[in-house]
């Protein structure tokens, strides 16, 4: 595959969140405001790119039987570094992100890319692929975070955009946007819209789960 395609394809065409539905746990949890969503997106992208680089470098020395353990150890080490950096320089945001930075370790997206691509490709393409996927994830996270903060609080990055009724403005904030279900709804609408625009993203019938008869016990 051409190198630029590695970077651009995961943005829309093979977006890890909307096409593969990976890494949505964190996209639900941290998108109540744009600030936390952006921080999370940057953290995940950095972890993904660095872990892809390291795993790609050692790919010829990685015994098959313990490869998952090694990958998890590398990802977890990088996550700890990122977590420490956030606590050192962005303490307030790291408090709001709480455990979700640590949970990047278990984000299916990271392991999916290192296992699925970096393990069998040279460092350059591996990092490009990781960056593309990280940006694809960031795109969805930032979009959902912006919508939730704008309509839930009338602000963006903490700055007032729509003056709310409480502050003497006209905008009635939609409290639902601050609750977890709204992230599900928004993500569902995004997936619906994208799959209507790009019908090739729709699942082919043969990938649907086989119908299993109910157990008659």
């Amino acid at each position, binding site marked *: 595959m051409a190198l630029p395609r590695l970077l651009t394809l995961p943005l829309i065409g093979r977006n890890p969140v909307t096409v593969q539905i990976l890494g949505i746990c964190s996209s639900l949890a941290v998108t109540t405001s744009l600030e936390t969503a952006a921080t999370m997106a940057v953290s995940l992208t950095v972890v993904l790119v660095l872990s892809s680089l390291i795993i790609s470098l050692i790919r010829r020395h990685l015994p098959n039987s313990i490869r998952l353990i090694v990958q998890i150890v590398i990802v977890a080490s990088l996550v700890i570094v990122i977590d420490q950096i956030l606590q050192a320089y962005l303490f307030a945001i790291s408090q709001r992100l709480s455990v979700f930075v640590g949970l990047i370790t278990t984000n299916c997206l990271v392991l999916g890319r290192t296992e699925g691509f970096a393990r069998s490709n040279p460092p350059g393409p591996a990092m490009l692929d990781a960056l593309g996927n990280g940006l694809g994830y960031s795109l969805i996270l930032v979009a959902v975070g912006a919508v939730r903060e704008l309509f839930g609080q009338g602000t963006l990055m903490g700055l007032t955009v729509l003056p709310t009724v409480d502050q003497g403005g006209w905008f009635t904030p*939609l409290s*639902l946007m601050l609750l977890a279900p709204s992230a599900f709804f928004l993500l569902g609408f995004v997936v619906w819209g994208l799959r209507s625009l790009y019908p090739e993203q729709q699942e082919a019938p043969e990938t649907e789960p086989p119908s299993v008869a109910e157990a008659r*016990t």
Partner: protein
Amino acid sequence: MTARGMWHRETVAELLLASLLPVALVWLGLAGGAGLLRLAVFLVVAGIWHVIWMLARAQPPSLAGTVTALALAVLAPGDLGLLALILSTSFGVVVAELAFGGWGRNVLNPATVALAFMGFGFPAAPWPELPVQIGWAALPALAIGLGTGIMAPGLVLGALLALGAGWAAGLPVAAVFPAAAGVLALLVADPVASASTRLGRWLNGLLYGGLVSLFLALWTGAAAVQLAVYAALFVSLAAPLCDEIAITLWLLQRKRRHG
């Protein structure tokens, strides 16, 4: 539609609307011109979405949109802005009904979902105080529904039984009677979104009455309509479970009898 005979989807929708007429007329009589305007807004929003889905997906529009609009007009919080009303109604009608393939294929009642959206989305908006006449008008509505066979006797009797038990236990059921009975007729007894086995319907009705009683006992500061609408939401989420319990019991019984 390939339905034969007179019983098809629209027959059920027409009878449902006919059985709700007592509630509609009493409410319109009390609310007057403002109520008519309010109903018209909901009718237009629901109608536009039905037409859009007919044009985009060739999904036949249903008269049941009228029932949704009526339930929303009676139960929706009073001073929501027009934008909020349109947003919530669109959410209920599109996500809970049309996206599933239209009325008859939906899992939840669109009006229940729209009301829950209003409740969670705009918690500051006050819920309406239903006058006691709505509660009394709900009884003939339920009677017509039972008589025409579109509402399930088990569901209605189960709900009244559980509410009666709550009243006998000393809970202030009488104070929320208009809301509880109105929501029962408008939302819970909906033949599509409620349970569809005989025992399941009893469980469905008992659960509704039980939840209203439970909320009355434990939820301080809740408005009558709010309490009944949330009970309706939980009950319609639990309706498949009621059916599942009924089917499991039937299978166990059959296994015991026939080995």
